[in-house]
């Protein structure tokens, strides 16, 4: 409803106030006059009139080219379009990235500013100010309230997908609720705009989330994939994710999210680390690397090569990345090196690499796993 009012009124704040007014009117009128046949249409219509009232009373300035349509708003197709418009406007690339995330969670997912601020380790006033500035920019620079056309869609969709994935990853270890919110948003997007990459992202999130309960010990230590209790993975979610990957691939417009989802599906459908089809995973990383070259993907591919061809082959590839001066300050580079050295029985070098990883790691579950590895390798413990 908010999305529709924003389109009709052309102003975020005005639409929010109008909707509040409409709800207040409903609380007063519905008990005595009965609930209207179409409550949603009633609220939108009431919101529109309340907004006109506000404008007439001059409590706010009339936005530039405001035209209030006379016809009553229609329900189904418009409402769907409006939610999609809202997502694309909140994720407009000319808005501050924090504001993109904040506005999407607030306007599309109905989270409060306080909830969003807590999730992204900022304060509510700071976030509120960013959102106020973003809304002012939407109005003043006239950022359109529109789903982009074919030509711009890939680039604009990429920003939307990035925002959703950011929300998902923010909840990776500790916030199942945020991950669920990201999945809900992903589902909505796929329902409104079934582009292969949107489907790929939804699949990727479902497949990662399916392993959530087995990812950390009760004490909060990361459990690596090969040690996870696969019987506790969410089978229904894995099935759905894998089916979505196939559906996305059928469109023959492959992209990075689809490929990452396909890799996650190969992991999720294997009964153990040993029986995982590592050749398939390496092949998918090869395609991903061609499509979206980045040292982080190279690192992941090196780890997969280590599993397929033996640790010394993976180690050689990681060392090549480090020699180029890339990913030297990334904890996972050193953790992956350490892991391969450990498998090769080169304990002193493994200890050195784990120690370097420990200096760089941020997330507590990963820190604990590295500490356990160091103890297992007999490294002297710091007090």
């Amino acid at each position, binding site marked *: 409803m908010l999305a529709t009012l924003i389109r009709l009124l052309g102003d975020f704040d005005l639409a929010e106030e109008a909707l509040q007014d409409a709800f207040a009117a409903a609380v007063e009128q519905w008990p005595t006059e009965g609930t209207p046949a179409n409550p949603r249409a009633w609220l939108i219509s009431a919101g529109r009139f309340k907004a006109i009232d506000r404008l007439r009373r001059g409590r706010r300035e009339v936005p*530039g080219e405001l035209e209030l349509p006379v016809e009553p708003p229609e329900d189904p197709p418009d409402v769907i379009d409006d939610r999609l418009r809202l997502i694309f406007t909140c994720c407009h690339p000319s808005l501050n990235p924090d504001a993109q995330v904040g506005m999407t969670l607030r306007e599309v997912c109905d989270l409060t500013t306080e909830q969003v601020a807590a999730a992204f380790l900022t304060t509510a006033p700071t976030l509120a100010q960013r959102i106020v500035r973003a809304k002012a920019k939407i109005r003043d620079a*006239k950022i359109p309230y529109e789903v*982009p056309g074919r030509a711009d869609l890939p680039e604009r969709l990429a920003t939307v997908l990035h925002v959703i994935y950011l929300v998902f990853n923010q909840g990776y270890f500790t916030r199942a609720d945020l991950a669920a919110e990201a999945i809900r948003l992903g589902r909505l997007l796929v329902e409104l705009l079934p582009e292969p990459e949107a489907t790929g992202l939804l699949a990727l999130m479902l497949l990662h989330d399916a392993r959530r309960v087995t990812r950390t010990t009760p004490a909060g230590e990361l459990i690596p994939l090969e040690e996870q209790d696969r019987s506790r993975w969410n089978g229904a979610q894995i099935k759905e994710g894998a089916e979505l990957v196939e559906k996305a691939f059928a469109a023959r417009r492959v992209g990075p999210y689809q490929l990452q989802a396909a890799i996650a599906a190969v992991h999720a459908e294997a009964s153990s680390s040993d029986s995982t089809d590592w050749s398939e995973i390496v092949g998918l990383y090869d395609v991903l690397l061609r499509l979206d070259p980045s040292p982080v993907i190279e690192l992941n591919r090196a780890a997969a090569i280590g599993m397929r061809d033996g640790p010394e082959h993976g180690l050689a590839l990681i060392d090549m990345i480090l020699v180029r001066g890339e990913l030297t300050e990334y904890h996972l580079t050193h953790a992956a090196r350490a892991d391969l050295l450990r498998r090769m029985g080169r304990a002193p070098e493994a200890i050195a690499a784990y120690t370097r990883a420990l200096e760089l790691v941020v997330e507590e579950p990963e820190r604990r796993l590295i500490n356990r590895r160091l103890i297992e390798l007999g490294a002297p413990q710091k007090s």
Partner: protein
Amino acid sequence: MRYLCLIYEDEKAWMNASQAEMEKGMAEYNAFTEGIKKNGNYIGGEALQPTGTATSVRVRNGKVSTTDGPYVETKEQLGGYYLISAKDLDEAVKVAARIPSARNGTVEVRPIQEFSQP
């Protein structure tokens, strides 16, 4: 809506350009300007002489002070502008992306502040 497209680029690149490069650059700009005149986006636009010709003027406590050059040294300098008309920011960005200097410099797109008539 009116938008000002401010064109920032390394002016040394222009100064060091060969005659042929210069002519090619001018031809690209002429073609772009003709294009936006034809489709109605164009309101105005000019190229500026290099920052070496610039004078900064300040009045403090009623006293005028003039100094040489722009206020701060930057890697890219303001080299010209277009004033355009577009239906929204997305259209303005599309126009700005076609400005030849967008490929090696930066184009800043700013909506014009419209003041209501008294």
